[in-house]
């Protein structure tokens, strides 16, 4: 029996839509890596999403459901980005430098411990962007001021921006996406991730102390005079209240993004009143092109997932949350994150993991957040492009980055999965 013409047309259509959506995703990701002519990533991602809508590859209803799911996530993300920038304007990160210098008391190993504590807390509360962009220079300046070799401390900050971003939904954009898909409350998410967070940080710390032993033994000087840091009381209080607001909102069944928005509004009002910031600076901190990129990427990925990828990858995500299944999910996510980037990896894996349950979603996060430390630029694709473009990379010892990654990532990932499995058993998914 020959296939009916209708059936043939449908097959052709399906393969066409599949090809188009995969090609557009590849284009969006390639442009996000390469940033031709310095364009914001949204310049390519938004038209790509519009093409998928215009050609009917993704229906208006599907796009609307993506926008409805991602809208609050993006609002939350914007609030946290602005909150971190306003905290910096208020002197929070300067104060972090003074605390670290005092805690170190001229001893590099104590400085490393202080960096671990602060970088973990900053990442968890103000997100990994804050740790990378705002805290890393402070950590370097503090090490230099103490005459300590900066390498272990700066590497710690960049590693923890990934590893310590497991704790709260606000710590990482990947978490915000997973949080929206998991159906977990804010406090339940944090409770389930607390043990994996601690264990993964502990694994990093143990490796760092040995890996950088000679840099840490080289010594340092005690800070000149006991400089008493100005404690930025106001911003600390606002951040603490925002954190409490997350828990309260979650208990009251309100989206915790409102708490982030409230904290940001308070700091913004004060910053504007004291002329420490301007409306334009606040808008810049919210990084609207980035928010548009996230929305457009979400729509493009949805098209790819709906047009075949779900079927192709579906059997790779285990359908239960036994220990081996959690481990397999986390490793799959880490591998995918290392090939392209953890953001598209999470967008692809979430629709597959969400039906399995919150445990599987959190396992995806363990892989996506810890995994990027394996390659120094977060993924092989980024690394490859930076090598081709010779961006800032002349002479960087990739061997050392990779050795450190090979020592930390598998250990942190396996221990974190064990901790998640234990948490799921004790607290329940």
């Amino acid at each position, binding site marked *: 029996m020959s296939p009916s013409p209708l059936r043939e047309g449908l097959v052709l259509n399906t393969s066409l839509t599949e090809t188009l959506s995969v090609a557009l995703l590849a284009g969006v990701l390639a442009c996000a890596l390469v940033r031709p002519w310095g364009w914001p990533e949204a310049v390519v991602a938004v038209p790509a999403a519009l093409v998928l809508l215009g050609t009917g590859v993704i229906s208006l209803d599907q796009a609307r459901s993506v926008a409805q799911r991602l809208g609050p996530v993006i609002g939350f993300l914007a609030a946290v980005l602005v909150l971190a920038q306003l905290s910096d304007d208020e002197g929070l990160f300067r104060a972090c430098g003074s605390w670290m210098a005092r805690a170190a008391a001229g001893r590099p190993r104590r400085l490393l411990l202080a960096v671990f504590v602060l970088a973990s807390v900053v990442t968890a509360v103000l997100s990994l962007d804050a740790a990378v962009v705002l805290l890393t220079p402070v950590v*370097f300046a503090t090490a230099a001021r103490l005459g300590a070799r900066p390498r272990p401390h700066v590497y710690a900050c960049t590693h923890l921006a990934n590893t310590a971003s497991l704790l709260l939904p606000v710590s990482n954009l990947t978490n915000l996406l997973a949080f929206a898909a998991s159906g977990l409350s804010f406090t339940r998410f944090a409770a389930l991730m607390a043990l994996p967070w601690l264990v993964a940080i502990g694994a990093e710390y143990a490796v760092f102390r040995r890996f950088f032993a000679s840099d840490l*033994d080289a010594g340092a000087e005690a800070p000149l005079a006991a400089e008493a840091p100005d404690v930025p009381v106001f911003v600390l209080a606002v951040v603490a209240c925002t954190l409490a607001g997350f828990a309260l909102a979650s208990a009251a069944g309100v989206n915790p993004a409102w708490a982030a928005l409230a904290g940001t509004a308070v700091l913004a009002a004060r910053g504007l009143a004291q002329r420490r910031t301007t409306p334009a600076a606040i808008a810049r901190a919210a990084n609207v092109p980035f928010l548009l990129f996230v929305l457009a990427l979400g729509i493009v990925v949805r098209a790819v997932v709906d047009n075949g990828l779900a079927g192709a990858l579906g059997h790779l995500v285990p359908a239960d949350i036994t220990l081996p299944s959690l481990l397999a999910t986390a490793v799959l996510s880490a591998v995918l994150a290392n090939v392209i980037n953890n*953001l598209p990896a999470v967008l692809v894996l979430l629709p597959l993991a969400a039906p399995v349950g919150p445990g599987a979603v959190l396992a995806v996060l363990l892989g996506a957040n810890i995994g990027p430390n394996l390659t120094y630029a977060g993924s092989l694709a980024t690394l490859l492009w930076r090598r081709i473009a010779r961006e800032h*990379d002349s002479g960087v*010892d990739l061997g050392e980055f990779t050795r450190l990654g090979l020592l930390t990532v598998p250990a942190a990932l396996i221990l974190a999965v064990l901790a998640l499995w234990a948490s799921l058993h004790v607290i329940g998914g």
Partner: protein
Amino acid sequence: MPEPVPVTVIAWIVEGTWPACVDAAATHAPEGADIVLLHVTGPDVPGAAHGAYAGLLGRGRPERDPGSRLQELAATSAQRLQRAAADRLGRPCRGLERSGRIEREVVATAEGAGLLIVARDGDRSHLGPRSLSPATRFVVDHAPCAVLLVWPEAAPAVATIPPPPPGPPRPPE
């Protein structure tokens, strides 16, 4: 008769261990020597920050890249270190700031020098093994001139040397 060319003595100054090298230069460099205080800034620390920022997909805004800020901070910190070292030496000297793969830059600079002064910077709790970090080991191994290797603090006692491995079994007498 042509004037003798002054011997060049290079003190490699590194965060944490530099005072010992400067003190050794003050003690061992002959009168009139051309003393060079060499500091090398490696690309890896700003590189780690560049890499971390590159891993944040979609943020755009290259002016926010913390690696560039670290490069500026590293330059300032190197100048401060050079000044502190010159003050401690208290003799005529010149500072030399290089950037690149640290161990290779040190070896390249040492070509034609009379003496290179290097501090131990590995595990210094006892004499021997691993009292040199990998970079310092490379420099000592490859130096194209005489090397003076100093302890940043008083050397540990000889009794701290780990016991020798058991010898091969002796043939029965």
